[in-house]
């Protein structure tokens, strides 16, 4: 069985779905067997869920849309070398 410090280092990659199948399986096995890692893992997951729920992109100011609209109305091919 992996030691706890190794598992804690891969908790975020595991939550982000970035571990390969083998490492993911090993992490899952450890989490099932180790209550203290599992507790931290679930809290990390809850924190990330909270973060992602509240940290959504803010609407760009209307002035940005105006600037972007000016791009579309310009003949961009004429100034392309």
């Amino acid at each position: 069985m992996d030691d706890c410090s190794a598992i804690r280092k891969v908790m975020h990659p595991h939550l982000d779905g970035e571990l390969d199948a083998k490492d993911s399986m090993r992490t899952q096995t450890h989490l099932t067997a180790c209550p203290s890692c599992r507790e931290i893992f679930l809290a990390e997951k809850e924190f990330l869920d909270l973060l992602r729920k509240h940290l959504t992109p803010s609407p760009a100011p209307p002035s940005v849309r105006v600037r972007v609209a000016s791009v579309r109305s310009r003949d961009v091919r004429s100034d392309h070398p």
Partner: protein
Amino acid sequence: MESGALLTLVRPEEARKAEFEEITLKYLDSLYGFSLVLTGNSDDAHDLVQDAYLRAYRFYHRYEQITNYKAWLFTITKNLFINRYHQRAREVSLTELEVVEDDPYESPKDVLVAASGRHEKGVFRQDFQRAMDALPEKLRLAVLLKDVEGFDYKEIAEIMSCPLGTVMSRLSRGRNLLKKLLKDYWAGASRQTRLHHAEHAVA
């Protein structure tokens, strides 16, 4: 009075324009948020977004070969930033503390306990934004690209032109620092709320 011949001449170009507008406008908020973090001010962020759209529009005919349109737009923006604001980008990296590997680990349980007293969604959102703004630039970019924009590690490494390991370490440090900042805000806020209630109880 549209003839069939005219339609085939006009339509592809118009359809292409409409398609460009649709997919690019979809990412306008995200791209502006990214530009704001890169440039650090609203005026330069406006310029950067405009330049990025102009470039994207010019190269749009390569779209067939672009499998990930959103990541492509972000990469264009970041490359433009590096070219246009190179001097400033260097200054930023000089003041950046890249090697701080021993930030103490923040328990997610502590921040969740501190959060449990705070329910108002508007306030919550403000707190997260304030904590994000307080992060060092590179850590903020990593968190923005992952947790706000949903890119995977490989895409972030490509957008930021850095190794995968750097993405992982910045993301982990950024999230860790967010926990600490939010815990401090919320712990402080609930102390103030208690004080406020206590004053009201007395009055």
